[in-house]
């Protein structure tokens, strides 16, 4: 993910359309991916748009305490969670809080080919909301546990446990194709 330079960010705060365009171009792809994973393809564009409106509305208040990419993804996370809450999806309640039995991939499964990606994408869509969110945020390489915790408004140890459970569950889904 790119990080906007200080000058572009300053122009964003002043509402310069060219700078806002650069912000949009820089983060459209990760935001879209996160949103697409969280709310599904049908509503992804609308929620993505909602996210950027929220980002543009708040960029003047961005204090630079975190990286801009982390902040944008945190905004996207909140918009997704609000959207999901509105939809009253209750996947979290269906989530097991206990440890998942660990299934491992066979060496041939571990090949990152097109079929594997498709199966993984399907498996991710079946994860409970918070696990999907954690795995998706983690898939942006810059996001540390601390940044994920901040975006998801939870503790560090919860991020660690959620990611672990998500991975176990993904392996189980992949195994039971």
């Amino acid at each position: 993910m790119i990080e906007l330079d200080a000058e572009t960010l300053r122009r964003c705060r002043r509402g310069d359309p060219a700078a806002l365009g650069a912000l949009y171009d820089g983060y459209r792809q990760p935001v879209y991916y996160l949103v697409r994973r969280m709310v599904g393809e049908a509503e992804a564009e609308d929620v993505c748009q909602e996210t950027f409106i929220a980002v543009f509305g708040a960029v003047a208040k961005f204090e630079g305490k975190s990286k801009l990419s982390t902040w944008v993804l945190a905004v996207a996370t909140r918009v997704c969670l609000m959207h999901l809450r509105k939809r009253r999806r209750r996947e979290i309640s269906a989530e097991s809080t206990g440890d998942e039995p660990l299934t491992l991939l066979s060496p041939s499964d571990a090949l990152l080919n097109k079929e594997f990606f498709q199966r993984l994408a399907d498996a991710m869509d079946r994860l409970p909301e918070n696990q999907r969110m954690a795995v998706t945020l983690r898939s942006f390489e810059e996001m540390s546990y601390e940044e994920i915790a901040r975006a998801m408004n939870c503790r560090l140890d919860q991020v660690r446990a959620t990611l672990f459970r998500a991975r176990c569950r993904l392996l189980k889904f992949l195994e039971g194709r």
Partner: protein
Amino acid sequence: MSTPSPQHYDPQEWSAYLDGELPAARRDAMRDHLRDCPPCAAILRSFEAVQRGAESLAQQPAPAQPQRRTRLVAIGAAMIAQGRSWRRWLLWLAAIVSAVILAGLAAALWRGATQPRQATPAVAMPKVQLTLDRVLITRYFVEPPSLEYDVTIHNGDARPLEVIRVIVSDPLGEKERPVAAALRVEAGQTLQRVFSRPIGEDARLQSGRYRILLETSDGRLVAEKVVP
């Protein structure tokens, strides 16, 4: 494949290891362990495959939406411009309000400086009299010496009088003295009272104007005495 036996590292730790979220010493020990432990290496490989797969998925390009982009940027620019305009107005408003308050304060201070309290006129209460009988310094054995104002209040009115505030003013300066909650002069009553202010051990009665102001429920009463 099977789950590793308990003497191996906890699979959750391998998940954190993969994310680089372990202390360096722990990470090094686990890396060493990997060399001789195929089951742990298999766990890590599986987690790694899932993680790398997720990262690759995240790289997939989002569908281009040029029209939506143009509209969003325009909305964003308008929102920020509006926000800036509001902020500018709010700043102006805050500045004007601050200026008015400061001007008011300055005027009050100026009035306070140019119109000393001694000039506070007594309200005409023809039937009420305040007399400052004497001013003296009293020294007690235990308490510090005090400058005392002996006064007489005569309430010739048909209704009782409440004393709310007492301010004494003398060469030592102006000072408000506490008033007992029950300082009430009934209709037709004459009351003698002492109001005092503590002074230094070596203080002497200085020449000058000694003045006492009583703020009552009906108005102000002033009495004064000049000590030569």
